[in-house]
């Protein structure tokens, strides 16, 4: 039984490591920042996930108690990865892109333009200051 568990755990760790490696290679290989952003947000989630599941299986089978920390780690990871990616993308848009290079939207993207409510507020302020 021990051997099967150990094989399962090592299998999970190796699988996770492969995904982490592929994700890192993707960061080297892709041509620009926006495509590079796809590698760490996805390919590495399974990398960390593999290690975490392996850890849970280890504690459950070889140590004999349930460990729930891993669930929390993956929860925090899933909550924070999209936010990090979002901010990196926004910083990139500010430094390297013009609104013209992006698809059009009615009121502009929030990285470049204020919300319609704020715009009308500013407008009304400037018109009152003129009078």
């Amino acid at each position, binding site marked *: 039984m021990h051997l099967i568990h150990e094989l399962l755990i090592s299998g999970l760790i190796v699988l996770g490591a492969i995904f982490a490696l592929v994700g890192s290679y993707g960061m080297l290989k892709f041509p620009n920042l926006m495509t590079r*952003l796809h590698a760490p947000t*996805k390919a590495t*989630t399974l990398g960390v996930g593999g290690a975490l599941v392996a850890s849970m299986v280890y504690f459950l089978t070889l140590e004999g108690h349930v460990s729930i920390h891993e669930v929390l780690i993956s929860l925090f990871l899933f909550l924070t990865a999209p936010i990090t990616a979002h901010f990196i993308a926004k910083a990139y848009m500010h430094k390297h892109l013009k609104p013209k290079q992006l698809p059009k939207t009615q009121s502009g993207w929030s990285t470049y333009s204020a919300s319609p409510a704020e715009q009308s507020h500013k407008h009304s302020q400037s018109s009152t200051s003129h009078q």
Partner: protein
Amino acid sequence: MASTTPKRSWRQRHFPHPLLSLTLFVVWMLLQNSLSLAHAVLALFLSWGIPLLTHSLWPERPKIRHYGKAMAYVLLVMWDIVVANIQVAAIILFRRNNSLQSCWLEIPLSVRSPEAITAFAGTITMTPGTVSCDLSADGRSLLVHCLDVSDQAEAIAGMKARYEARLQEIFHD
């Protein structure tokens, strides 16, 4: 703001976010990995204090309609994350850079509540070949960068049908 809100009940003043309190309690207990009374008391204190302190940042409660559907959604997204990992890994390993059709997409949003939009944007980032990058200034569409898409209209329709329609059922909009 405060002057316009009607008088709040005892529960609303002391437990403005019951769901957040419950989550904080459970997460704190899980972090400790033990069920001792001391940790439970501390967890109770935190789950009472943090919602009170952060209440002004988050005046309204998310309106969740179907908790069962929310759970099903979480499982669906977890499955999609596994698929996404394999797809992106395959693209990294087997595709040449110059054959990638990466592009920007504008996804018009049907959901309006901030919680639903956040969940949708987060889901898009975690799932195959898409990263959500920005919200339009009026909050009605989402800017998404795609790693490899041949049919843009189909990609937009696919994301809206798979995730947004479900979120719309989960949250009151």
